[in-house]
């Protein structure tokens, strides 16, 4: 069996991902440039962000070729951030409500 050292992939795939990241970044910049607003803006921003993040982690950081044990150990814990995100949003809304209710006169 040939001794395989580390992660070896053709250079071409890095150049392709590099190109895609440029395209996706340009797209997210254009969202702002053309003043897309509302839910369309937010969903475009989040989708483009997640696509870019996915490409970087999967190919540039070689996660695609790692064993599942490492993949799950690193990629599952960040999902917990979503719980924290939910708590933060709930808390922020509540603070906003109390500010309107009790401090609106002072503004």
């Amino acid at each position: 069996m040939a001794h395989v050292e580390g992660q070896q992939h053709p250079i071409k795939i890095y150049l392709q991902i590099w190109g895609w990241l440029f395209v996706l970044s340009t797209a997210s910049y254009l969202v702002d440039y053309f003043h897309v607003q509302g839910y369309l803006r937010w969903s475009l921003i989040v989708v483009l962000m997640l696509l870019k993040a996915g490409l970087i982690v999967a190919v540039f950081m070689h996660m695609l070729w790692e064993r599942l044990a490492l993949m799950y150990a690193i990629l599952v814990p960040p999902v917990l951030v979503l719980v924290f995100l939910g708590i933060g949003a709930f808390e922020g809304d509540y603070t906003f409500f109390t500010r309107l209710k009790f401090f609106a006169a002072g503004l």
Partner: protein
Amino acid sequence: MAQTTALTHTGEALALPEGWQGIVADWSSDQRAFKNVPWGKAMMWIFLLSDTFIFSCFLISYMTVRISTTVPWPNPSKVFALTIGGTEIPLILIAIMTFILISSSGTMAMAVNFGYRRDRIKTAALMLATAAFGATFVGMQAFEWTKLILEGVRPWGNPWGAPQFGSSFFMITGFHGFHVSVGVIFLIIMATKVLRGAFDHNRPGFLTGRKGTYEIVEITGLYWHFVDLVWVFIFALFYLW
């Protein structure tokens, strides 16, 4: 490289199980859960996971202060606009910084590849190019900070709206800029070692005395790509939102 696979009685490598069986087998195995991965790389991934939580905390706190403020949030599209040739282009500086950081990730990915091919000159050149892109990024960030501070943005207030804008901005971009700066230093040190041939001759490294191998180029790369990854989130959530 250490032997990471079990051997049969005839000395052939025993194939590691894949899928769910692989996860169970890896995690329940002796000595190490992360097969085929040098411990330095596993440790870097675990560090990056902890760093993910730090940046998540920053971005979530930014979200809560932005939700809870009763004063309008300053429009980042206008705040970060630059006037070039008489026309105001929204967010252009941030867009350029994004492209620079992505390019640095591209050169870094190729440096890792040439490292494993033991091409010293190309590896070091690409790592130094990455460091140069990184330094350019930090320079543009310094320009951006200077511009905003001169316009009166402070952690406790700014001329356009919610005072929390300044504190979120300086905290998030400052911490990210610090990461980039550390990465640039790390890259220059490792590129120097590559050029000297420290990894070809397994020369012991400073501080630890560990024998140097080209895996460190990939580990440096992981850190660098993470810095780019964090910027993807900051760009989307702070600058574009």
